[in-house]
């Protein structure tokens, strides 16, 4: 987990801990894409992800005194992951993009379109795949979903995930395995919806 751009993280964090809001806002600008992406992947709903991101930054500023060094980004990601996890548990939030409604989803609702760099055809294919994957991820049970996102989207290791979610490492391993297997089964079951280049073969 590394910073999105070069910045004197230590100095900014120290200044923010002394109450310098401008210094903290520099950190916000540096990390807001990462934080929002994580919130969106876990919650599956753009509006909820915005709320969670804003609340996570406010909570991080309020509790800066509890930050004891190390990677500020990791600490921040744990903060937002915890908020999303609480949100999922509290409201049993249903994702805006459901697996069932994937087939008839509006193209404009796809947030990945803004990320399209390749040729128009590739971009369209990538966007379709991304929508498909996001729909599959939010179809996972929340416990499995958050572990999958923290591992395969955020690149956290087992121990970091265990610390963030507050579960043993063994539970992280089993939940992650179940999440991946379930996602694989979903992709195999609906492979005709995937772009041809990305279709999984059924091993059975």
């Amino acid at each position: 987990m590394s910073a999105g751009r070069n910045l004197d993280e230590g100095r900014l964090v120290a200044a923010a801990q002394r109450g310098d809001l401008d210094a903290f806002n520099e950190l916000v600008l540096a990390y807001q894409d990462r934080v929002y992406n994580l919130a969106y992947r876990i919650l599956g709903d753009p509006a909820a992800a915005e709320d969670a991101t804003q609340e996570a930054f406010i909570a991080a500023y309020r509790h800066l005194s509890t930050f004891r060094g190390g990677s500020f980004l990791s600490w921040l990601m744990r903060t937002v992951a915890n908020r999303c996890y609480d949100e999922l548990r509290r409201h049993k939030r249903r994702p805006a993009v459901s697996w069932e409604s994937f087939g008839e989803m509006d193209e404009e609702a796809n947030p990945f379109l803004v990320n399209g760099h390749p040729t128009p055809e590739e971009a369209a294919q990538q966007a379709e795949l991304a929508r498909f994957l996001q729909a599959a991820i939010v179809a996972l049970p929340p416990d499995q979903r958050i572990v999958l996102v923290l591992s395969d989207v955020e690149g956290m290791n087992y121990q970091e995930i265990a610390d963030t979610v507050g579960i043993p490492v063994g539970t992280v391993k089993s939940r992650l395995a179940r999440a991946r297997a379930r996602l694989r089964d979903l992709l195999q079951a609906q492979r005709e919806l995937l772009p041809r280049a990305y279709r999984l073969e059924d091993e059975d």
Partner: protein
Amino acid sequence: MLGKNRARERVDEWLSAYIDGALSPREQARLEARLAQDAALRARLESLQRTVALVRGMPSVPAPRNFLLTPAMVRQTAPVARRLAPALTFATAISGLLCVILLVGNLIAAGPSRLGAAAPAPMAAYEETPQMLETGPTEAKKAPPASETALPEEGLLSRAATATEPPAPEMRAWSEGTPSPIEAAPFPPDMGGVGGGAAPGPPPGEPPTPTPEMTPSEMARVAIAEGTPPAITVAEPTPVPVPPEMPGGKPPLPPTSWLPVGGLALLTAVLAIFSLRAWRAR
């Protein structure tokens, strides 16, 4: 079926950990040996690897707007709790103090009368009366039967007439449920029923049977022996003595005087709960 699913889950767990490089060297060697022999297991691993690769390759979703904090947002740090917690604590303390002061005041004001009230006056009178009228060693030591305790005047009158004679039929009739004129006669509440058995005159239409010289002297003797003032008034046809448990004749506090104490106690409890929650919210 369940065992098969569990076995598949175990295999997926191994494959997932293998993808992350999280198996021990020994476990990894065992799995690789199996993979070399089992084509279906290899296909399973490949599909899982492909799935993980797809997720890891998902493009990042950029933030739709800036999430810069403003001083107003930061000032919102638990505003209500932060302001209210000390005020609520102070209010709790004041309310609790007032409650204690009021309670102590009430206890002081009602202390003696409350002590008297601890043994209800009618019962005290019933316990006293047989002792005061005790003339013989017979059944007087025993607790009087319910009918006697219910109508102590029966014992008084009958013993006053003759110490050994059974009560007159009319008296027995009273004890057997016929409403006594004494019961029917209203008494002031502060008598507490003490004189209910001592003061009344004979039933209407019947001349008073007791010999006035006998009963008071007997009663005085008994009373002196017990160290209490002679309850001459008991035998007098005039009303009832003031119960000895109420020195000074202080009336008990009316129940309404305890209402403010209860109200303040309730208020203190509610304030304490709110102030606890406010401190936690900080």
